[in-house]
């Protein structure tokens, strides 16, 4: 059975985790992804974690995760003869995903306008910190910077302390995901009218997309919602409670009331106070008291006990798991959420498998390629061995 995107060819010009994540997901859906790497290799090859903390372009955990299902071609597109070859590939490419600073590809003759004139069916997905236009287009954008400007930073952390970013490079991941959706929208549009498109993704906007309501509340009411510690943002006294993270005997749980049956909190913890009318009507107004009552009860129980008992009552508590616990969780094993991949240098590793499970079409997850592993094989489809030898001579391919 072919994959959903069988027959779609994607060309990736490397540009950080966002671009790599976008094309990883396209590869998972079945597109053929050709990753064009500079002679030095993708930037993620130089990011950890590494086994033994020893940097090696073939063993970066971030790279191995973000590049499953792709082929690597080592081609120096700074060189004109390499770009001429790239154009030959682009003539038979459906989607190009790139993360160059706005204008940089135009300077190389690979800007959207020039490519669209030559290849009207081509979809170009450009992922940059702030998008292709606007006053910040040429700003330098680290992930923490787009996190801040997108408004998302102000929603994480304690109100009395500095706002916090989340783990790793989440905004890069989200920008990649937005690139995936934009690419799918453009591919669908092209089915009907044969026209390509330019999907101009902004990481700052990907951060803003995560806000989930506070901007609209502000526009409609003037209320400015900010980070609220471990509690749900925007709680007012008449809202439900708990919706927070609290400590128990062996770690933390996410404690959340059953919104339709708030009285079940009292049953769960055998605390009649939690079923009093005043408590039920203004639960969030009693958040400190509820925390204190919960903490006393939680301190005598382990996470799994608490959650098992709550879930049995249909009160949606869950455990806060550590990464090692996530990896060992039988739930994920039973569902095939992780796959074991053998890499010639990095060895055997358990990696996240299908992001989505399709009943009829496979999700492709194969180990990440080594730098330039497929240069000859892929380019050999577009040029003769004499041409390849000449390119090798000039250093256009390595």
């Amino acid at each position, binding site marked *: 059975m072919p994959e*959903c*995107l069988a027959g779609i060819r994607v060309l990736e010009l490397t540009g950080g985790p966002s671009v790599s994540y976008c094309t990883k997901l396209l590869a998972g859906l079945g597109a053929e992804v050709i990753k064009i790497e500079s002679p030095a290799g993708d930037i993620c090859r130089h990011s*950890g*974690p590494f*086994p033994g903390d020893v940097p090696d372009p073939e063993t970066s955990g971030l790279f191995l*995760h973000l590049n499953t299902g792709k082929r690597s071609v080592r081609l120096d597109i700074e060189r004109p003869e390499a770009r001429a070859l790239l154009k030959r590939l682009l003539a038979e490419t459906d989607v190009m995903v790139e993360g160059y600073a706005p204008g940089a590809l135009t300077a190389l003759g690979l800007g959207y306008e020039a490519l669209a004139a030559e290849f009207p069916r081509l979809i170009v997905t450009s992922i940059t910190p702030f998008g292709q*236009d606007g*006053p910040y287009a040429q*700003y330098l954008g*680290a992930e*923490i910077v787009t996190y*801040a*400007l997108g408004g998302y*930073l102000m929603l994480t952390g304690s109100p009395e302390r*500095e706002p916090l970013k*989340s783990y790793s490079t*989440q905004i890069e991941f989200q920008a990649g*995901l937005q*690139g*995936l959706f934009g690419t799918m929208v453009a591919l*669908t*549009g092209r089915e*009907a*009218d044969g026209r390509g*498109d*330019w999907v*101009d*993704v*902004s990481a*700052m906007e990907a951060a*803003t*997309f995560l806000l989930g309501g*506070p*901007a*609209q*509340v*502000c*526009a409609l*009411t*003037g209320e*400015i919602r900010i980070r609220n*510690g471990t509690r749900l943002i925007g709680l007012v006294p008449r809202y439900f409670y708990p919706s927070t*993270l609290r400590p128990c005997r062996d770690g*933390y749980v*996410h404690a*959340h009331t059953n919104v339709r049956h708030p009285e079940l909190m009292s049953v769960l913890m055998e605390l009649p106070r939690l079923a009093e009318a005043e408590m039920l009507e203004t639960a969030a107004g009693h958040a400190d008291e509820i925390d204190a009552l919960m903490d006393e009860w939680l301190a005598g129980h382990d996470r799994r006990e608490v959650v098992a008992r709550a879930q049995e009552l249909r009160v*949606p508590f869950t455990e806060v*798991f550590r*990464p*090692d616990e*996530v990896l060992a969780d039988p*739930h*994920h094993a*039973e*569902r095939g*959420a992780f796959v074991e991949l053998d890499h010639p240098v990095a060895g055997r590793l358990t990696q996240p498998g299908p*992001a989505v*499970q*399709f009943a*009829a079409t496979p999700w492709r997850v194969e180990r990440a390629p080594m730098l330039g592993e497929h240069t000859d094989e892929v380019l050999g489809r577009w040029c003769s061995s004499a041409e390849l030898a000449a390119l090798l001579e000039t250093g256009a391919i390595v």
Partner: protein
Amino acid sequence: MTSAPGPRKPLAGIRIVDFTNAVAGPTATSLLGDYGAEVIKIEAPDGRQPNPPGTAPLRPGAADEPYNRVMHFNDLNRSKLSLVLDLAKPAGRQRFLELVQVSDAVIENFSPRVAGNLRIDYPDLRRVRPDIILLSMPAFGKSGPYRDRISYGPGIDAMSGISHLTGYEDGPPMKPGNFFCDQNAALLAASSCLAALRHRNRSGEGQYVECAMIDGELQVVAEALLDYQMNGRVQTRTGNRHPSIAPHGVYRCAGEDAWLAITAGTEAEFNALCQVINRPELTADPRFATNAARHEHQDELDAVIAGWTVSQVKLSAQHTLQAAGVPAGAALNVAELLANEQVKARGQFEEVEYADLVQPYPHTRAAFKLRVHTSRIERRAPRFSEHTRQILAELLGASVSEVEQLYEHGVTRAAPLDAHGLRV
């Protein structure tokens, strides 16, 4: 039947039955609606319980239907049509199956137990429409020991490991923002729906697609999962710090709750930072001469930077640092974000008028602009049951008397029942 004004949108011609609640599902379907799919939201007769603190201000003189002013609901359900049906009643079930017959995909995010009770399963739907796509968004999937657990987004964040990894170095685990895993799952689901449609268009084959929210979130904590395997290291919270780059932080500025994110990943950026903060001598200081040294002495370095930012206005400092070649950005609150020059220039908030509200709604479009196809959000969230008669008559061919019977028997209704069975 619902031709949108203006040029063609890329998803025009696709019809989606939206059977979703809470955040992740409605976000996925509104995204598809924004780009032109016809999204028919099926609402239960007791849907949209208005919570007074969560309703938008009423325009003076407008009829007061609080259930049509639920702020969060409207935001998550723009670009859709509303059809009210009680699926527990046989006639409601019948009309639902008729709707499936003329649709391309059904998207639902009930817990597997509720979906089972409502008999929304793939074999049943395929019987009426052989090439239908059913996309489910359960929290943990429809198999495995957690299949019957219930959870909102932040509870799934907890189980994925991201809450453990988010927080101050000396503090408890934190929620990563508001509803992190909901938007994460929504983007995957909307993309997967389009991928499954492409496969159907080529092969004639529909399918069941399972977008378990936890699966999508495992993808974003992979570094911690691999570090544990490679080094036996259980990663934990490190605040705003970067594993290898320093400085990398959020620094207090002049004013209330004012903060600026600054980092410098290269020597050139660090040199520029030292110039801007009038401390050029730092580049020669052995504690800060290399990135490795800076990383080792980042407490001291952060104190120096914070000593400068504390008297700066965050936006001016941002401009100064960026002009000098230092990555920096103010932590914008939502009011500042709505007014921000970059946000305005790019137009991520697309204003849509609501007749009964004082203000137009600034709906948040996806994080990209298209240059060829049109993509503006045009359709406000539907009023409760707004399109019920139209859909029953025009799409499902119900006669006037058949429609009236559905109202009479409570299969559909014009205004929601409240939780106690009374009209709101």
